[in-house]
């Protein structure tokens, strides 16, 4: 039976209604007059397009993997108490977001796997899932695509050689897509103040000059931040912590001769300094992020993309000897430069088929130094890494079936000149791996589709695990293990996307992620304290994500999701680890939220976030349990002035309304309830 035209067509409405907070006059998007409607929609939005699955924009119903899209207008209204991009995903299913503080990284997890198995991308080039989420500015982001399931054929590992080691897109990848299209000039000033002496101000402008589109933004934030460590821990404060953060970014987009032949450049600098609440625990960090892209749809069916990026991390900490002494012990400096590049060629052929092939590479320099109070500097670590990947993927459309398959050949080389202050006996390591990915989707009816995916990935050992950090048999540290193999993983998922009515969408996704040759760190000697990393185990994470969104009217919407996860580590050689849960992966996660309009034309949104039990280690005897708490965040806003030329909006954020000062790993603790009032002027 042919589906009634009108009934099927308007299933697009929820996608638009999801963005109903966008229109600057507070009216729902779909109720705007056509002239305004075309300004706030794009071809991408009308076509419900996603880019992460194939590197080219494709209709979401021709993509085998589930991709959750958070658009700019929704991002602007999501609570972000720690100003961390990871918090934007907190209310999507499967995501455990664990931002330790406003000055620290996110130690979350996704789909039952720890933070190293869910990579982040900035416009398709990898960034650090820990640090960059803290430094990048959400004002530069057009949308976030949360790609669920394995993505390691088209995207490489990120060779972060800092304390986190590598990051790989086995469980999923999250792509922060930069604003590329400037339709109308806009200038915006924002200012606000809140708890703990927090002040924030920013200026933003966008416009066009001929074929050049530009965005410029600068912002400053400062706070007498409250103590955020457990009492008596290494984070114990003896004075009020303080920080200042300055962010500046520039985005240029130049159309050479056609709208699909473009050069674009994005540069952001973030300066972050302050102290952690003790006289000699100050820090000063500088982050530079650059993305360059060349896009050329040079023939009817051919599209070439070249991307190059630089990520510079300059992090400096002072250390004391708390609790024995508050005196300065030393300064630690970490300088890291990572340069990813990607060349991708896409070819459309047949009826909706898409061939994608290309090569990517990364080059890494990693240095750490220690400076004594007297000024003497000693080199601690000097390492370099480079990787090369060749990939090919084919996507076919056969009536209602979508079929996808891909292969990647990855080569990774490490060179160690100095580790832990020593010249290591093992000064190089290299690995080559072949990876694969398969996926299918069946669109049974206009509102119902099923999909399944599987793919492999790997995680290289960190430098210190290969080269060790001990200088002699009697010193403490990590012993070298040059024969250490990468962890290998396979991700699988099976899901259903259902839209039973215009107002309701329901998604169900089951996942099974397995890791082989899992690297575990075993204690070899107590005195001296020595450990060695070995391929001794395997791990498995399985579970499901259930999502529902209900939008009965333009001024009322409701969503809820539930994730249940079961994880196990297998390490028969170590009874303390064998049978334990994967660290940082909560057994349950649940979210609910609603947005509605209050009397007085006040718009309100409230979010509830529940975290089940999770642990910080695979050691049964040494681990600590966390979680089992719920959080309520709310946001209210009202347009004080609105006319054709100006808009002034007042916003009130109420975070952690029930004042849950929950514990987190590494002795961190959430500081509890806080509020922030902001004013936003746009013209």
């Amino acid at each position, binding site marked *: 039976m042919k589906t009634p035209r009108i009934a099927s067509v308007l299933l*697009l409405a929820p996608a638009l209604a999801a963005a109903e907070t966008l229109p600057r006059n507070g009216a729902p998007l779909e109720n705007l007059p056509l*002239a305004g409607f075309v300004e706030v929609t794009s071809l991408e939005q009308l076509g419900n397009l996603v880019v992460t699955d194939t590197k080219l924009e494709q209709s979401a119903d021709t993509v085998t993997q589930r991709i959750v899209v958070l658009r700019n207008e929704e991002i602007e209204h999501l609570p972000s108490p720690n100003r961390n991009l990871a918090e934007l995903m907190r209310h999507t299913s499967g995501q455990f977001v664990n931002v330790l503080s406003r000055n620290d990284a996110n130690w979350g997890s996704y789909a039952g796997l720890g933070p190293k198995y869910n990579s982040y991308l900035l416009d398709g080039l990898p960034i650090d899932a820990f640090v960059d989420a803290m430094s990048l500015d959400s004002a530069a982001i057009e949308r976030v695509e949360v790609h669920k399931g394995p993505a390691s054929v088209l995207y490489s590992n990120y060779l972060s050689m800092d304390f986190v080691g590598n990051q790989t897109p086995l469980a999923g990848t999250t792509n922060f897509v930069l604003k590329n299209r400037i339709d109308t000039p806009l200038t915006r000033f924002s200012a606000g103040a809140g708890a703990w002496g927090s002040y924030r101000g920013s200026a933003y402008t966008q416009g066009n000059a001929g074929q050049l589109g530009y965005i410029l933004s600068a912002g400053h934030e400062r706070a007498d931040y409250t103590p955020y460590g457990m009492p008596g821990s290494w984070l114990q404060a003896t004075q009020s912590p303080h920080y200042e953060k300055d962010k500046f970014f520039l985005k240029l987009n130049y159309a050479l001769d*056609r709208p699909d032949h473009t050069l674009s450049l994005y540069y952001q600098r973030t300066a972050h300094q302050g102290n952690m609440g003790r006289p000699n625990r100050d820090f000063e960090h500088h982050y530079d992020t650059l993305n360059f892209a060349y896009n050329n749809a040079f023939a*009817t069916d051919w599209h070439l993309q070249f991307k190059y990026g630089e990520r510079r991390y300059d992090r400096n900490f002072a250390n004391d000897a708390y609790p024995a002494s508050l005196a300065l012990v030393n300064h630690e400096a970490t300088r890291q430069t990572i340069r990813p590049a990607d060349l991708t060629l896409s070819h459309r052929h047949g009826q909706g088929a898409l061939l994608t092939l290309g090569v990517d590479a990364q080059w890494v320099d990693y240095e750490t130094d220690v400076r004594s109070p007297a000024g003497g500097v000693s080199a601690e670590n000097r390492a370099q890494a480079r990787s090369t990947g060749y990939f090919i993927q084919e996507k076919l459309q056969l009536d209602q079936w979508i079929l996808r398959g891909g292969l990647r050949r990855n080569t990774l080389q490490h060179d160690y000149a100095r580790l832990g202050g020593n010249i290591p006996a093992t000064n190089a390591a290299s690995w080559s791996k072949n990876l694969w990915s398969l996926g299918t989707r069946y669109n049974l009816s206009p509102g119902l589709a099923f999909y399944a995916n599987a793919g492999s990935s790997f995680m290289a050992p960190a430098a210190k695990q290969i080269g060790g950090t001990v200088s002699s048999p009697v010193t403490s540290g990590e012993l070298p293990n040059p024969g250490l193999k990468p962890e290998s993983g396979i991700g699988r998922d099976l899901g259903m996307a259902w839209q039973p009515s215009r107002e309701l969408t329901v998604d169900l996704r089951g996942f099974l992620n397995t890791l082989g040759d899992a690297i575990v760190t075993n204690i070899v000697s107590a005195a001296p304290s020595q450990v060695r990393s070995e391929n001794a185990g395997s791990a498995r994470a399985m579970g499901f994500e259930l999502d529902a969104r209900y939008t009965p009217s333009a001024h009322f919407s409701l969503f809820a999701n*539930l994730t249940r996860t079961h994880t196990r580590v297998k390490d028969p050689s170590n009874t303390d680890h064998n049978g334990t849960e994967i660290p940082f992966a909560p057994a349950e996660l649940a979210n609910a939220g609603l947005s509605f309009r209050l009397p007085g034309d006040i718009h309100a949104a409230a979010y509830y976030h529940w975290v089940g039990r999770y642990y910080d280690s695979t050691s049964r005897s040494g681990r600590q349990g966390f979680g089992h708490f719920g959080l309520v965040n709310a946001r209210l806003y009202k347009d004080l002035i609105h006319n054709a030329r100006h808009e002034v909006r007042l916003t009130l954020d109420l975070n952690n309304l029930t004042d849950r000062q929950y514990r987190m790993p590494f002795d961190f603790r959430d500081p509890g309830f806080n509020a922030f009032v902001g004013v936003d002027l746009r013209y």
Partner: protein
Amino acid sequence: MKRRAPRLPLLLRCILAVLATASLSPAHAAPGELEAKIKAAYVFHIIKFVDWPSLPADALQLCVAGNDGVTQLLVDLAGKQVKDRPLKIDSDGSFEPAQCQVLYVGRPEKRWAELQARLRGQAVLTVSDQDGFARGGGIVGLYPEGGKIKLEINPDAARSANLRISAKLLELARTVP
């Protein structure tokens, strides 16, 4: 001792129950106005991704044939800037097709065959939501599928009209012979 499964908070269970109930409720009547608005917005955005051999300096002329929800809406785009010039909408039916840069053919329009003959060799982008429009010699067709409005493009018709369709547009459309 048997371990009790952790229970979700009451609020969350209530919201899940509401959502479950909602899944059983009938769909609201679909407003045809939104469908028309989406199609009209498509027309506007598509123009950005088409290159003409030459364009008039003063305005880009969008001619509208027929009388349906989309054609009535397109009039609202008069004066909007696209390709660095304002849109001029001609909807009174007296236009000379060869003078248009874009021709939208509404659903009740019966004169498509006649218009098509007059457009032969002219650089005019033709768009319609009529069934089989692109297969029948039109350049861009709008059709419903999977709950969305989608595009189909006839590259041969575009070539005959001496128009260059951006690959970006082709990437999100299906091509028809």
